[in-house]
């Protein structure tokens, strides 16, 4: 059993409930025990770092203090929450730490959930429960911005061309396709005030995914998932195309590979139905 602290973040309490369910179930199945951080608060997201550097750092710092007290490494699924927590970590361990209200000694490691899953010890647990290879799924891995950039904050090793998700999905037997837009931006929270920007960016992703022959896009961030999934119809219409890409969480693929029946329910919570794809490749449970 691997014990870790867990920061779900606000979206996973709301619109990304599907991601949350898949994370919590799959972790339990592969022997990761998630301890939700006591009384965690919102990391402030883009709004906080846009309007107040200081408040943004303090919001995340409060969570780090709580996590350090709990004494276990901290895993964070949302790429933006992860990035904000890492930014606070660097400030609290840096030369300006005295300007902030919170203390953090750096005694625990802050993990992006995907990266946590890519450890050999977790893969070994998955292997023990492995039911069937995900043959026929031809995903492109979409990492987005925040889990990797900037490396001075995230401590990422391959920020221009990350490969950990590619390796994990190949390990699950999926026929992963390499592509050049792994870490291109989806526009994130601009979707509210500037959907025009998001539609342009996401269109480029779809166009490339189609050109390289992918049949689905796999993500590890609920913001990327929403931007690619919810507006696919609208984007198709706007650019006169006919895109069909189920947008799947990597945890759902782990679930499929270990034969977890609840996957079906998680998939019905997406806007673009994965059913036609899953049935066409014979992976239905």
């Amino acid at each position, binding site marked *: 059993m691997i014990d870790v602290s867990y920061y779900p973040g606000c979206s996973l309490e709301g619109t990304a409930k599907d991601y949350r369910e898949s994370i919590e179930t799959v972790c339990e199945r592969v022997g990761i025990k998630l301890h939700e951080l006591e009384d965690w608060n919102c990391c*402030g997201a883009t709004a906080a770092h846009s309007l107040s550097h200081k*408040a943004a750092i303090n919001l995340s710092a409060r969570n780090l203090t709580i996590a350090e007290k709990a004494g276990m490494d901290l895993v964070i699924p949302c790429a933006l929450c992860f990035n904000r927590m890492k930014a606070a970590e660097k400030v609290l361990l840096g030369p300006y730490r005295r300007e902030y209200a919170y203390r953090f000694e750096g005694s625990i490691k802050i993990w992006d959930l995907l990266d946590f899953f890519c450890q050999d010890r977790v893969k070994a647990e998955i292997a023990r429960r492995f039911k069937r290879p995900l043959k026929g799924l031809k995903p492109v891995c979409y990492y987005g911005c925040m889990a990797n950039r900037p490396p001075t904050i995230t401590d990422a090793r391959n920020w221009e061309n990350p490969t950990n998700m590619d390796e994990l999905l190949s390990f699950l037997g999926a026929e992963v396709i390499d592509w050049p837009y792994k870490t291109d931006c989806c526009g994130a929270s601009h979707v509210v005030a*500037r959907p025009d920007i998001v539609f342009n960016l996401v269109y480029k992703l779809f166009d490339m995914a189609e050109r390289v022959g992918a049949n689905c896009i796999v993500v590890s961030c609920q913001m990327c998932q929403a931007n690619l999934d919810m507006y696919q119809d609208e984007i198709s219409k706007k650019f006169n195309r006919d895109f069909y890409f189920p947008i799947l969480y990597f945890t759902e693929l782990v679930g499929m590979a270990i034969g977890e029946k609840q996957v079906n329910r998680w998939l019905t919570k997406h806007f673009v139905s994965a059913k036609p794809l899953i049935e066409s490749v014979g992976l239905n449970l």
Partner: protein
Amino acid sequence: MSVQTPQTIVPDYSFLKKVEFESKIKASACFQCRKCTNGCPVTFAMDFYPDQILRFIHLGLRDLVLNCATIWVCASCETCTTRCPNEIDIAGLMDYLKESAEKEGIGIKDNKTYMFHRVFLDDVKKRGRVHELRLMNEYMLKTGEGVKKLKDDSWKQDLKLGLGMLTKGRLPLLPKGIKNKKEVKRILENID
């Protein structure tokens, strides 16, 4: 025929000093290679490119950088910061400029991106966490987007997505709050 005379700019380096002192970001290290701009995904929506913003800061064109669309169009994707050969945190500068614009009340009226951030932080201030449904309602009200959508029929698309969320069980109607709301409120208080 009118001859266009180039406008003369008298550089005012005090702005650069202020920016560097307050943001702790070394904007003066920029040698205008444009690597930041070349990798930026949203230049198509900007009025000035990221390298130009750096140049304007050098020249002391404060009003121009605080008023421009670019700082609000920036998606904080961190590509520029990652790639700058002089390790300048350009994304951090964009944030610094937004923060300054808000403080001075410049360029924030009718600015939907700004309104979204404001409403977001107000929501966090109330409960320590964000409740997406309330956040969206507030945003629609405050920006008048709701009324606009009613008029141009785009509400139908929103309704479709909203109902989709609801039937998929992804829209909890009641917000959750944290126990220590006061502490979070305090963190957010000193920014107004």
